[in-house]
């Protein structure tokens, strides 16, 4: 393949980079040769990274998309590949048009004509219009609706979703260990006796998994599963998993 000589420019985004590559390869946007494009695209991103240039996630996302299109197009049934290529072509055409318009706007836009500041007419500027309380209320909902995406949600916000009380996995870990303390073994199903509700069952199951992972207990057998407490130097290791369900 012809070695392309890039001057490392900054690109406005992945679409910009793709357009440059397409132009350099004398491809048509409507007939993209995806394999060539993927290789050169990745090569360019590699070069950008080497120069410590800022490679935003948008570039990486596009890389993933290109690789996916290429992968799909290698499969015998290429309907999906065609569809994906068409989508990419459409997006590129649209972006190319956007750039054309932007360049027209850029030639025409000036900041050379100045309006005046509003004349200082001597009346007080206080507002005398009416504001409907409902409009204010709607505005509040609207403002908060947006902010909610930016503020971390408060625990109470989940109250509608998690209607059963929160059962912490830690508390179930302690409970399981306590149960095993006497004999050192118990039947697996017995660990779940006394659980009320799904949350407790799930938390207990997670507790068992955590304990197994931490090599504190072992679960053996098939029908009559037995849970065994493994002996470990006491207090050397705290129970794993302090996260909440």
């Amino acid at each position, binding site marked *: 393949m012809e070695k392309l000589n890039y001057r490392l420019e900054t690109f406005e985004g992945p679409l910009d980079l793709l357009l440059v590559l397409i132009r350099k390869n004398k491809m048509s946007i409507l007939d993209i040769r995806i394999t060539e494009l993927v290789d050169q695209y990745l090569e360019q991103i590699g070069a950008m990274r080497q120069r410590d240039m800022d490679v935003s996630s948008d570039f990486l996302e596009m890389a993933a998309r290109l690789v996916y299109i290429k992968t799909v197009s290698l499969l015998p049934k290429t309907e999906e590949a065609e569809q994906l290529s068409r989508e990419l072509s459409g997006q590129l055409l649209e972006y190319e048009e956007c*750039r*054309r318009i932007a360049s*027209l*706007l850029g*030639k025409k836009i000036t900041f050379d004509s100045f*309006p*005046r500041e*509003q004349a200082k007419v001597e009346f007080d500027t206080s507002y005398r219009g009416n504001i409907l309380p409902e409009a204010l209320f709607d505005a509040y909902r*609207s403002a908060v609706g947006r902010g909610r995406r930016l503020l971390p949600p408060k625990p109470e916000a989940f109250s509608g979703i998690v209607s059963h009380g929160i059962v912490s996995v830690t508390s179930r870990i302690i409970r399981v260990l306590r149960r095993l303390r006497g004999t050192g073994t118990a039947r697996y199903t017995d660990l779940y006796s006394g659980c009320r509700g799904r949350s407790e069952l799930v938390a207990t199951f997670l507790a068992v998994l955590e304990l197994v992972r931490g090599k504190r207990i072992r679960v053996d057998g098939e029908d009559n599963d037995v849970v065994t407490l493994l002996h470990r130097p006491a207090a050397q290791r705290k129970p794993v998993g302090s996260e909440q369900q």
Partner: protein
Amino acid sequence: MKPEISKIQGAAEAILFASGEPVSLERLAEVLELDKPTAEKILNHLTDRFNAENAGVQILRLEDGWQMCTRAEYAGQVRQALDMRRNMPLSQAALEVLAVVAYNQPVTKSFVEQVRGVDCSGVLGSLTSKGLVEERGRLDLPGRPLIYGTTPDFLRCLGISSLDDLPPVEHGEEEEEADEPQKQSWPAEDAG
């Protein structure tokens, strides 16, 4: 009759001068106590009178209103006299965002980002603070995204009176009637 009209024109002139911002036909008609067609005729006449002279001040028609501002050819002297700095030309990114907003308004940020393929928050913010783009409320969709449109200042800086005067979009997906003759002369396109 004649002095009457010149008084109305004088009032219109004073209003446009004092307002600074574009003043809508509706408001002018109300204050001048005229019906809208008559007010429009008088404003058009005033505009012609202003713009015919080799004057320093012009009246622009922007959407449904008028605005008084200086002529671009005197920009240098005005800047010098008022100690204003030259505005930086808009970046390529800003122009692209502006193009997407102008042709598709009102639009959400995510629409703009879809067309450009990159995050546009910063650019939209700076276009908003430059007064070229403004918030237009929210879409009634999950997340209630803000929607954006262009301002009268955008038209003024572009030297056009209406969004209809934007350069026509090329391929047909935008379902636009191309039968209208181009009102503005747009420079020939280039590859950029």
